[in-house]
């Protein structure tokens, strides 16, 4: 029996268990069946009494539909639903900032990045699954990026410098590459440093 079917049987024997619903959503998400995944994540959100799990489940519904593309209005509102449910957590701020910067709505993108850094509690334990939040550095990245577009260019460069200072702590993901590029473009690092870090 494959892992999806095993999890399905767990669900059938206990359909009101929020964690089992969540895990069945994960099984479907892992194979790209995002509509099915949404059903079970949403049930988890409604069933659980744990606010963090509900928040994570709502962000998962967003991730599923975002993967389907072409539903941006719903995406934005679902992120606002998550943010409203648990404004102490940072993930929804980042995702809303990304949503707006993807549309070159720089003021809103900047606002959510700043709110994420200023209002959210960055000491909370990470969520247990991938909702599209790689770490707090992504919020700082969004702030640096959007500051440039809202006229706060000195602050933007200061933030790129801070991000570079901690670059050794970051995973080599898409953020890492852009940070290095921007640091090179703003003469924060020279060509030699750039080449060394990108070739590592």
């Amino acid at each position, binding site marked *: 029996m494959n892992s999806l079917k095993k999890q399905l049987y767990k669900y*059938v024997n206990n359909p009101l268990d929020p964690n089992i619903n969540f895990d069945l959503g994960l099984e479907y998400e892992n194979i790209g069946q995002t509509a099915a995944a949404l059903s079970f994540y949403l049930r988890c959100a409604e069933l659980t009494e744990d606010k963090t799990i509900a928040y994570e489940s709502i962000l998962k519904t967003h991730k599923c539909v975002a993967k389907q593309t072409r539903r941006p209005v719903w995406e934005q509102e679902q992120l606002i639903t998550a943010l409203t449910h648990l404004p102490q957590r940072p993930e929804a701020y980042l995702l809303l900032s990304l949503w707006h910067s993807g549309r070159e709505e720089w003021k809103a993108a900047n606002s959510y990045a700043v709110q994420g850094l200023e209002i959210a509690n960055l000491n909370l334990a990470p969520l247990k699954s991938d909702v599209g939040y790689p770490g707090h550095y992504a919020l700082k990245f969004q702030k640096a990026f959007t500051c440039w577009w809202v006229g706060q260019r000195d602050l933007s460069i200061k933030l790129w410098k801070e991000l570079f200072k901690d670059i050794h702590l970051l995973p080599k993901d898409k953020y890492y590459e852009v940070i290095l590029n921007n640091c090179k473009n703003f003469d924060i690092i020279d060509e030699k440093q750039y080449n060394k870090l990108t070739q590592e």
Partner: protein
Amino acid sequence: MLNNISQIAINNGGSLTPLIIPSELTDGTGLCNVSLFMDGDELLANIRHVHYTLYHSEFDQKFYCKWGVLAYLNPEDDLTLTTGNYLCKLDRKTHEIKEFINVDTSKNDIKPIWSFVGLEDARVIRWNKTLYISGVRRDVKTNGEGRMELCEIDWKDDSCVEKTRERIQHPSQNYLEKNWMPINDMPFHYIKWTNPLEIIKVNTKDKSTEKVQEGILPTISCDTVITKKEELELPWDLRGGSNVIKVDNQYMCITHEVDFWHHPGHFKDAFYYHRIVIWDKDWNLVRVSKQFQYMATRIEFTCGLALDGDDLLISFGYQDNASYIMRWPKPLLEKLEWEDLNKIRK
């Protein structure tokens, strides 16, 4: 009410299997409302692919989305609710999909002019050696009028083409005619209404055409050929669901009922319930189950019922987002709750 009969199945010799078309072909949107047909040694299925994701908030309904607790998340740059169909061959032991192919309807398509596009809830059936799918289409008139269509299918190794498409016209028809249940062993007969029973027969030689805004539709007539006066007092209409199959010399199908309402603020919501209905060979009502649900959720829909050996096979959609086939050994019918017909006859 039994709200999770899948639990009875998997713990009593039955099984439950997810039916999946790769997400590369569907963008991950919903697969639902599977029809079944035992075609000689082959178990055929038709899986409906809806190009949306259904959002249905249940229980305390804390998480309304932008469009309420029940919303169709269609692409926001395409406000249609579009359906496609995949015909499949299932492994009779595991019920997993062995082969699947998208039904190519391009030969008969005309420009859709209403928001529900495509052949919905198609049932697969072979009558007189010809393979058909038969469901409702609502996209040819600006008012969304729905009519059952009978579509001949030419399925070869590498193609599956809708060869003909005929719109079935009944002398007395409503704005929306859908969910007629094809009777497997009575070619071209459908149950149009279950309570009281009305069976129609398609007049295969009475073909005509109807001109509509975007083209000309081939049509075919039908007439009511069997009616029964016996009527039950039930909370909602019994609407069609599965094919009608013969089991132990009796006719059997699965119906659905909908409790549909609006929350304050005009946000729509719905519960769906199902029943097994059994008639004798002369179409006298024998048994009607009490309402049940499959997997403890509020929106489910059955299009599929087949018999493989001593197992009933039942297929259903879960919130329009996922589809399943359940093996239900015949003796488990006694684990369902059954109506006392003497108490509910009108």
